[in-house]
């Protein structure tokens, strides 16, 4: 009985709880019904209008890409408006027959010259894609001219669902100038979209490729905005949705580069497109790159053109045997040739093997006998000390010096000033490191060929035949030898500013290699650099600039038997207070002193503002 009572109580309590639960259900459902009533009765008209006559559309407001300026505020890269004609699925008629009518109308549209605007194939593809992609407009005419836009707008009443969009595209006002430094933009590829690092991008976004455009893509991009608009039945915007804030796009950052437009122009003119080569001008005091040329060039503007022309231009540069896409100044690795004698000499002086009074027993008689091998020199120079040997670029002296100093010390000295396998970390993609061979790395690299390291190899390496350097490394080398205050990381970004000009980030010069030698070594090397250019017998006398103490070193890199040598010239000026270092390489052009030195001279003249006429007087 007691048990029953207890049970009874429990049952009553349970039933009461079920009632509470059901009451809760009723309450919740009541709230939903009230809300539905409010939407479907009170606000019926408003919602019906929105869904039938007017439609809501989310429009992405593409952020303006940041400009690139030179160091003096000249625009190197800017944007231009570009019109796109597109189909919008949601505004096109739903029936197939109606779509066919629009399709045929589009096909008949001609411009003033009587050319058809659209071709059947691409239009057909677009109309196919419409069935899959409903929320995004599908482009049917890229980069349309103002005239073409006007024609479409004229027919707009007959063409529901055909809309005009404005995009902004990159424009490079100086064409090929510094094209390898600036890079270009293109639509992000589907392969890139799959990678995690491009997570924040979406289909149709333009992304920087190569050069600064790629290196600072995140900074240039800014942030896209969004707005919610109402469009009419034909898909044209009729107004914004009230009470909905527009997210304004944030313009990308402006990059003030270290490039000096005036200097860059001179450098570009000095190396014609017919010559393969590169030039780097750098400020050794902070690593700012003042000019960089890689020849032949390409015009990045072709990547902003419409597809057909873009593909044509792309095919041209991609298939060109001169490889204009490569930035030779940072990705080209060359044998440093006699410029490397600076390193050999420096190492000798630093380790006390060489001095101004050190002469070798074998004087230069046009060659050097090493074992069974006879190594030639390019001239007959007699007996020389280190300064004279550098001035005349005598091989025989450096054969003997190299054997004395040993490769390990030479390479160590070279690495101090930026040579070697590790790239310098310039802020555009594609930089390669060089190579300073020693026995281990030489054997590893040439294992397949069966070559082994031998002491005789030092002969060639001591005069710079066999190492690899990039033109950028070469400029950094001579610059930092001249300053003797450390190697600064070469870079192009001076400042990043927002659209109002407020400073966002400034590049802080950074020392990446010690770049230091004994004062005595420095003094002797500086004397040598001076005499190469300013001594009447110096190999680099064509690099001399009136009124400025230019120092330099020539080089003629052998690369293939029977071909002309690669012409090298590395210069730095003024010697008492180094402000600019220049490295020039002209592939298969001949001797460095004859071919490359005049190019460097033009750049130095421009830098110091010396007119050509004055020198003639």
């Amino acid at each position, binding site marked *: 009985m007691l048990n029953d009572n207890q049970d009874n109580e429990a049952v009553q309590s349970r039933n009461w*709880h079920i009632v509470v639960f059901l009451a809760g*259900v009723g309450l919740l459902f009541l709230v*939903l019904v009230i809300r539905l009533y409010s939407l*479907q*009765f009170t606000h*019926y008209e408003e919602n019906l209008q929105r869904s039938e006559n007017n439609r809501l559309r*989310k429009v992405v407001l593409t952020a303006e890409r940041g400009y690139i300026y030179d160091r003096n505020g000249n625009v190197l890269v800017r944007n231009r408006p570009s019109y796109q004609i597109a189909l919008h699925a949601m505004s096109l008629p739903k029936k197939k027959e109606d779509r066919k009518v629009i399709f045929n109308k589009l096909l008949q549209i001609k411009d003033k010259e009587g050319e058809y605007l659209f071709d059947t194939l691409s239009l057909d593809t677009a109309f196919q894609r419409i069935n899959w992609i409903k929320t995004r407009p599908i482009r049917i005419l890229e980069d349309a001219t103002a005239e073409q836009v006007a024609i479409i707008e004229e027919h707009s009443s007959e063409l529901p669902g055909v809309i005009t969009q404005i995009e902004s595209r990159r424009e490079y006002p100086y064409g090929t100038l510094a094209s390898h430094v600036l890079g270009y933009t293109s639509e992000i590829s589907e392969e890139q979209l799959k990678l995690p690092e491009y997570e924040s991008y979406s289909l149709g976004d333009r992304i920087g490729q190569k050069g600064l455009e790629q290196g600072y893509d995140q900074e240039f991009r800014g942030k896209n905005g969004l707005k919610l608009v109402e469009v009419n039945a034909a898909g044209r915007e009729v107004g914004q949705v009230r009470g*909905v804030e527009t997210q304004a796009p944030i313009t990308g950052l402006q990059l003030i580069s270290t490039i000096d437009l005036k200097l860059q122009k001179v450098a570009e003119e000095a190396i014609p497109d017919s010559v393969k080569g590169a030039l780097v001008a750098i400020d050794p005091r902070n690593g700012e790159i003042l000019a960089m040329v890689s020849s032949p060039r390409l015009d990045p503007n072709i990547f902003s053109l419409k597809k057909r022309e873009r593909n044509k231009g792309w095919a041209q540069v991609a298939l060109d045997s001169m490889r204009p896409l490569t930035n030779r100044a940072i990705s080209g690795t060359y044998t440093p040739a006699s410029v490397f004698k600076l390193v050999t000499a420096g190492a000798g002086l630093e380790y006390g093997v060489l001095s101004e009074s050190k002469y070798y027993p074998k004087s230069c008689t046009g060659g050097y006998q090493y074992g069974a091998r006879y190594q030639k020199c390019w001239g007959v120079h007699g007996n020389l000390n280190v300064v004279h040997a550098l001035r005349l670029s005598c091989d025989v002296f450096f054969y003997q010096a190299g054997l004395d100093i040993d490769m390990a010390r030479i390479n160590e000295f070279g690495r101090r000033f930026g040579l070697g396998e590790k790239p310098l970390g310039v802020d555009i993609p594609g930089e390669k490191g060089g190579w300073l061979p020693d026995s281990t790395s030489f054997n590893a690299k040439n294992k397949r060929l069966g070559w082994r390291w031998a002491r005789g190899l030092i002969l060639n390496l001591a005069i710079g035949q066999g190492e690899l350097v990039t033109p950028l490394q070469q400029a950094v080398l001579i610059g930092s030898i001249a300053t003797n205050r450390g190697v600064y990381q070469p870079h192009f970004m001076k400042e990043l500013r927002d659209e109002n000009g407020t400073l966002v980030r400034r590049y802080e010069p950074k020392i990446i290699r010690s770049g230091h030698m004994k004062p005595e070594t420095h003094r002797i090397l500086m004397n040598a650099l001076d005499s190469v250019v300013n001594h009447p017998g110096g190999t680099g006398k064509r690099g001399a600039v009136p009124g400025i103490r230019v120092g330099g070193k020539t080089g003629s890199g052998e690369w293939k038997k029977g071909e002309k040598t690669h012409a090298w010239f590395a210069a730095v000026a003024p010697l008492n207070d180094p402000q600019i270092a220049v490295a020039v390489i002209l592939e298969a052009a001949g001797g460095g002193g004859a071919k490359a030195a005049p190019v460097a001279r033009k750049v130095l003249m421009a830098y110091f503002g010396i007119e050509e006429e004055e020198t003639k007087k």
Partner: protein
Amino acid sequence: MSSGRFLDKSLKYDWLFLGITFALMTVGVCLVYSATTGEDIPMYDTFWFKQIVYFFGGSLLAAGIVFVKIDWLKNIAFPIYVVSLVLLCIVLFLAGDVVKGAGRWIDLGIFKLQPSEFAKIAYLLTISFWLSKHPVSLFKLKTFAVPALLFIVPFALVLKQPDLSTALVFIAVTLVAFFFAGLSLTDLFLVVSPVFSVLLSHSQSILFQVLWGAFICLVVFAVFRRRLPKALMAAILVVNILSGYASSMAWNMLEPHQQKRVNTFLDPMSDPLGDGYQVLQSITAIGSGGAVGKGFGNGSQTNLAFLPEEHTDFIFSVLGEQFGFFGCTFVLLLFALFLWRATSICKMSSDPFVTLVTMGASTIILFHVVVNIAMTVGLMPVTGLPLPFISYGGSFALTCMVLVGFLVNMRLHGHQ
């Protein structure tokens, strides 16, 4: 209640209940059909056809469950609970297939298993089994130890996925289970009171300050009315006040953009270009349906693909647009009847396990219905909870059918 009792006693099977379930499924298949037509694919590959297949499979499963003895359900409760935890761990740490950024699936080749769905069922059985033997009471806090442990493990694993909405299902089931295992309404109120404290005190505005003050008074009143042990009384009050202050402090410590993110979650319309865009489209679709709707297959909003998830999470807006207010209330009525028939099963048995499973299953269905519809009409945050029997989706259709199987089973075997 008399007619209900008549229904209860006279029949082994509640045909009304089964009829409602079938009606809801039919509505679901029709709406999925309407939401996804126009795509030119063979019939066996269409969403609506697959949905029929899922329901058919689910019905077979449910039929199988119906004939299982209740004792057997009690016996397997704990083992399948352990299995579900293992599956949750697998999906979390090993085989997560990333769908919309959250690893929630295990691909079994022919079928993608969603362990969190499985865990809902396993947890329902386990917590019901435990609480049917060990009722809880605020006067004996020890009684909460095991249920809390049973709850926290799957809850944390699901939350980690991250699947907040499914994790909230676990909370709802737990609270209702406590309610039917010894707690009174006042007790329940006290248990959840800190949550309200957090919500009420995050804003510094006078209105919210006053509301929170009033709320605290209410808590004090409830605590004294229940004559709880002094330590517990103090604890509840302290937790309330602390969580209140902590909430406003934490809120003020958030960066403005973080605050914005929370606001956007709680009120999607404050971000009409993000989540709010979908909700705005959904509201427009439902509102434009008016009293009777635009008719089957005539949804301009939905057909135009404004709603990317119209056949799953936003299926209710298809209903609202095509069948209007009456269509919506009809479906709500079906759900209300479903819940009424389901809860009436408890009265057939004196076994607390039957009560707990029945009420738990009802809660799972109710929670999904309310949260999903509230989301589509812009009353609640956008979460990923589907609408039972109506949204497209294999795993969830199976879950619903298993729950139906339990309910029918309880009715059939409960009074023994």
